[in-house]
């Protein structure tokens, strides 16, 4: 039912845990539907190839209550997001995550949607907090 890649990420999840004082947190899912996922990001600045300053994901961690697909999708999402600029990471798509896992069974596709939403929410949380700071 699951690809070896999914089983591998479920068995040995990458970047599992919390980030204390995270710059952004994405909380998605709920207990009623059975999957709950928290994605934590730490943001830093660097200079891109064109010499412009950009913000990127310096560290990312997740915690997930859910099935193998939900855990594997969370793990894969952190792997794909780590080191990417915020703009790139924000564009991570459910299909991209699904492809990277070697495709989830159709009834588990929603797990990749959940983790794609998780990273977006974490980045939005960071942007909102930054906005609040500049507003103050």
């Amino acid at each position, binding site marked *: 039912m699951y690809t070896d890649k999914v089983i591998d990420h479920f068995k040995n999840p990458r970047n599992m845990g919390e980030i204390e004082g995270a710059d952004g947190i994405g909380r998605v899912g709920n207990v009623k539907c059975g999957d709950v996922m928290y994605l934590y990001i730490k943001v830093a600045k660097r200079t891109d190839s064109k010499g412009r300053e950009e913000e990127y994901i310096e560290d990312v961690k997740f915690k997930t209550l859910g099935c*193998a697909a939900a855990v594997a999708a969370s793990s894969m999402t952190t792997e794909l997001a780590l080191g990417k600029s915020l703009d790139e990471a924000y564009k991570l798509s459910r299909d991209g995550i699904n492809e990277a896992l070697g495709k989830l069974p159709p009834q588990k596709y929603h797990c990749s949607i959940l983790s794609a939403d998780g990273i977006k929410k974490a980045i939005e949380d960071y942007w909102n907090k930054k906005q609040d700071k500049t507003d103050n």
Partner: protein
Amino acid sequence: MNKIYLDNAATTKIDQKVVDNMIKAHQLFGNPSSLHFFGQEASKALNDARNFIAFFFGCEFEEIVFTSGGSEADNLAIRGTVEANKSIDEPHVITTMIEHHAVLHTVQDLEKQGKIDATYIKPNEEGLISPESILEAIRDNTVLVSVMFVNNETGAVQPIASIGNIIENANIERIKRGLPRITFHTDAVQAPEFFSLGVKYLKVDLLSISAHKLHGPRGIGLLYVKKGSKLCPQICGGKQEFGYRAGTENLAGIFGLSAALEVIVRERADSKDSYVEEKADFPLMISDSIKHVSKLKEKLISGLLSIDNVRINGSAEYSSPAILNVSFLNAEGEAIILNLDFEGIAVSSGSACTSRTLEPSHVLTAMGVEPKWSHGAIRFSLSRETTEEEIDKLCEVLPGIISKLRQMSPLKPEEM
């Protein structure tokens, strides 16, 4: 690594005696309907098997109708009864919310086709159906009541004899009033190894079983059809199975089913101690192997209760000795199953049929189990072949798996 199989409610390991018997049947290749020697030899063997099986149920030879399995037997019982009552204005069927999908989806299908009105009885929080709730649901146009014997997910044992009694009494009144007679069907697929299937005691008209749930082969089951029942065949063709089910008989399967039942009967006969539990709605057939299974279930329960935030789903008193349904808070069922599989231990969530869908079990939901518990439900199902060492191994590895998954969860139990 020695693999441990604790998914016996899904299917059981075939008994070697059953395999040996089936090989014999394959050598009797004649068609039992043929007049020549080859046919008659097969016909005689078929009769012997049917005779023995009728003895097992305490019924007559002509009341055993072989089918391809439990699902077909359930379909024949429900569709066949409804069709036989089609002259009635909007026939009404009563079943429960906790049936196997072979019953539930069949009733829903007939309802969708506009052929019946249906009532689905809700169980109490222990997963038990009350006989009174069946009585209250009976209407003038009720033609069929279908209630399972042993629930495949929780092991809860339903009060079949009491319901049978209520329906029998209701029928006496109904005949006087010129109302249709109610047929009573039970899906007893999870019962034969453990509970008395004396059909006269249970007061059922129709009863389904399947061989592969009792160490027999797949592809064979039967429907007990009480003489005089109004039932239309659903597979038409030849006159096999007393006109209730066409098709050349699956002699090897029938031999396998018969041999599997014979193993049970012999084990009871050879037991140091064997008797039927004297509880009206709990006809447990005590034998050495049943005692063994019951003891292992007790051991498993005490092992599991050492883990915090655990609950047992289903009745403790009226429960199959072979099935235990447990929920772990803050750990997801499929994740637990896969982790146990990595350790060589096979279990399932609610049922094999629901393990590929996302919805929590319809049985647990009907019992009012909250999602935070039902998503973490695991069914352990034992058999006479399960050993104490296997239960020890399970109790040894499970706490670590649950704690690993809980560490991965973003929630704390008190936040759920």
